[in-house]
């Protein structure tokens, strides 16, 4: 575990109770009892007799159990690949990994000869589950609240476990997503989810994983925007961005003060009681540096702005986007600020940028020693293409093993869940993808899928429609 991991150890869902969100705590308790029930049922149902045909549509949660995947090439990501290895899954976790492991009694075995086992991919820059159809069906769009400051908007409330996007995404090997709200200045809080479950909280790995701030942009003029005004007054643009930043600064400072007042009152009830304010309360763990703040920032000036602002406000920043991150690489490395790199398959942002400037950005960040992971940056439908973002980075200089890491271990580290996700190691959540080839290759098929230790069927809205029509003559 790196220093950064240790530092980040204070974040994550351990802090969720501190927000005082009593309602959410109750739900969590209920979730545990549901899981217990499912676990107790698991032993009695064999792999071939799963109830029904649990797809994204029916939302049935496949039960956990004890599973043995044998004779596979195990791409652990944490260490060397293991040929002809075995992985044992028990009660949702990886129980054993290696060439000689004890096979537990009453287990179900999958012969994976000729196949490979990978840790599930993690996309840390999506709005998966928050929007079904972006255009023409606004009723299905829950990505952005009204107004500029919505720290108390929580993705985990609105993630739709029955969205067709969930199954469509997972059957291609993406097992986890950070679902992020998008609008305003402070968009809300993102949720890190397993892509299986019948309720948002069954899916949650970290229900309040990060605060999302859209760093104010100063790139009003020139350089590419079609709808951008042709002439901008730089003074006005800068002033507007500064006003927005001041808005964010003020609410964060208010949250600090609010947190101190609430703490003080808790210790000494004779002090004045600060009225409960849900918006400020939502910010407290973030202004205390207990959880990370994801800043959307793509241009050099924005990224530099984020680093300065986060330092001033003592936040734990993560850059989301990072098209220009290469230009700020030394500073990002120095301040150990990680980047969720989303733009690899975008067109270069300036007309005179080199054609491969975004293809090769991942390789350059790695050379510079910047912590980064690769994301599709997609709202949902194209998250399944995550491996091709990493693959393109590999085509342009990122070593293949690093490309794989950039969609497995690296996002887990950046989101401070590397103790639970991102590699094939004993004790981690059993999110495993069994393939007939290289996980990042387009022609590869996923043959078996486990999420949260559950054998997830490989069907989706798309396979269902394929089955329904492929034999129509």
């Amino acid at each position, binding site marked *: 575990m790196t220093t950064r991991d240790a530092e980040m150890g204070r974040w994550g869902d351990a802090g969720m109770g501190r927000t005082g969100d009593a309602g959410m705590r109750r739900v969590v308790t209920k979730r545990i009892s549901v899981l217990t029930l499912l676990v107790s049922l698991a032993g009695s149902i064999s792999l071939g007799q799963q109830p029904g045909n649990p797809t994204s549509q029916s939302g049935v949660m496949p039960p956990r159990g004890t599973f043995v995947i044998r004779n596979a090439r195990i791409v652990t990501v944490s260490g060397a690949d293991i040929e002809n290895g075995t992985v044992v899954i028990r009660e949702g976790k990886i129980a054993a990994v290696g060439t000689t492991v004890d096979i537990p009694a009453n287990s179900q075995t999958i012969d994976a000869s000729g196949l490979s086992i990978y840790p599930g991919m993690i996309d840390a820059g999506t709005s998966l589950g928050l929007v*079904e*159809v*972006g*255009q*023409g*069906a606004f009723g299905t769009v829950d990505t952005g609240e009204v107004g500029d400051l919505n720290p108390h908007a929580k993705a985990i409330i609105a993630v739709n476990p029955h969205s*067709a*996007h969930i199954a*469509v995404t997972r059957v*291609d090997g993406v097992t986890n997503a950070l679902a992020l709200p998008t609008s305003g200045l402070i968009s809300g809080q993102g949720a890190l989810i397993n892509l299986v479950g019948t309720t948002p909280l069954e899916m949650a790995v970290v229900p309040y994983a990060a605060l999302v701030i859209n760093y104010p942009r100063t790139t009003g*003029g*020139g*350089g*590419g*925007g*079609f*709808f951008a005004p*042709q*002439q*901008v*007054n*730089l*003074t006005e643009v800068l002033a507007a961005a500064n006003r927005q930043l001041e808005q964010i600064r003020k609410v964060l400072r208010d949250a600090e003060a609010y947190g101190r007042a609430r703490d003080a009152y808790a210790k000494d009830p004779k002090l004045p009681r600060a009225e409960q304010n849900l918006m400020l309360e939502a910010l407290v763990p973030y202004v205390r540096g207990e959880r990370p703040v994801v800043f959307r920032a793509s241009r050099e000036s924005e990224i530099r702005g984020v680093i300065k602002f986060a330092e001033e406000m003592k936040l734990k920043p993560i850059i989301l986007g990072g098209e220009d991150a290469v230009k700020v690489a030394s500073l990002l490395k120095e301040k150990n600020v990680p980047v969720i790199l989303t733009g690899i*398959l*975008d*067109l*270069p942002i300036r*007309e*005179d940028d*080199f*054609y*491969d400037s975004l293809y090769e950005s991942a390789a350059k960040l790695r050379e510079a020693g910047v912590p980064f992971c690769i994301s599709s940056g997609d709202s*949902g*439908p*194209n998250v*399944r*293409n995550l*491996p*091709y973002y990493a*693959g*393109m980075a*590999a*085509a*342009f200089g990122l070593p*293949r093993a690093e490309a794989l890491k950039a969609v497995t271990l690296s996002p887990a580290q950046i989101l401070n869940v590397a103790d639970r996700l991102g590699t094939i190691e004993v004790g981690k959540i059993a999110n495993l993808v069994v393939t007939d080839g290289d996980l*990042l*290759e*387009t*022609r*590869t*098929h996923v043959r078996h899928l486990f999420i949260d230790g559950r054998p997830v069927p490989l069907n989706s*809205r*798309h*396979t269902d*429609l*394929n089955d329904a*029509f*492929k034999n*129509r*003559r």
Partner: protein
Amino acid sequence: MMTRLTIQLLICSLIAGISLPPSFAQDRSAAQETLIRNATVLTVTRGTLTNADVLLRNGKIAAIGKNVKASANARVIDATGKFVLPGIVDCHSHSMLDTINESTLSVTSMARTSDVLNPHDIDLYRALAGGVTSLNLLHGSANAIGGLNTVVKIKFGRPAAEFIFPGAMPGIKFALGENPKRSNSQPQPGQTRRYPMTRMGVEETIRDAFTRARDYKKSWEEYRASASRSEKNLVAPRRDLQLEPLVEVLEGKRYVHAHCYRADEILMLINLANDFGFKIRTFQHTLEGYKVAREIAQHGAGASIFADNWAYKIEAYDAIPYNAAIMTRAGVIVSMNSDSDERARRLNIEAAKVMRYGDLSEEEALKLVTWNPAVQLGIQQRVGSLEVGKDADLAIWNGHPLSVYARVDTTFIDGEIFFDRQQDLARRPDLLKERAQLEAAEPNRPPPGGTSPQAPRRRRPTNADDDMWEGGVEQP
């Protein structure tokens, strides 16, 4: 307004010009003859040849095989470990179009994309770097009957006239469903909704246009018949530039490329075309084509589709990535297009997805972006496969083009190099220096506290994509 626009165009042209130093233009035409040696040659139509040579001479493929001899002054490229693929043909593009939609009327068959070609569009170069050599430049999908298309070779750095693909069949864009209904755009204040706004109205709009075209055609036929009988006092029918292209469609002289999504509207257009006795050459997007693959095959239409885009709007919610496989197996000629300056750069990966979804073979996958689109555009005699005598439009890849890890080294059109990665890398230091000089130049510095200099803006949105950003944004 016009003056300002003209100045912008001028600045854009200048900047695009700067990105192509004279040395590059000289380099690529230096050798008339090129020998690509010891490559894996993916001919697409005649199998895969290993350790084979390809000889390019006078713009054509002169030889393919082992131990091919070239003249002494030929440029020789050692392609050991590399792959040669025909130039990718993108059957749905809006690159280099200054404007995409003439969206005022529901029938705009008089509008021509050939009038708005911008040869300096930098995204053309980026497509070359993805192994693409030919594009079908289509009018947008705002109208039931849109404008006329232009098929081009991406001769980036040359005048627009040199881009035109010789002998390509003329075509026209049709559009069905949400876009011609203007479902996702709101009328400006003071405007009324444009007819049609239902799929019923879209059908009627096309039927009405062809009814008029048929009458118009008849008027001319009657006139010509009378003229041939030397009748006196004849008055020729008034020429109608809107109906002339539709007459060409009726006569089989112009291909119809029809944007569509739902199965019902695909069937609607097949029935309508059958009523008037013409053929649909390609259905574009065709996201629910898999539901009516039999009918599409029976009509003899092709389908040009996305690999896996879905759910970006309601009519795209039933799209599935198995579409290509189902239609191919039903006998439909399928191509994989970009409809996007971004996606055009990686159509090889889009093609490879059919091996994951539907288990098509390598050859079938490669055909989706080479042979099949060439057939759909009527240019397969010249491009789309590697065969002796065909145009030397091809790319050298550093790995198998269906691999996500592959990238393009060199792209040829008519035997000339239009993209070369080593040349691109080599001229970067100079370009960076030039850029720094320009940035430091006095006229480009914003005056303190004042207004920024006028920046050249793109003449159309980045990642121009008629379908994904549909929403009336092009309207004033």
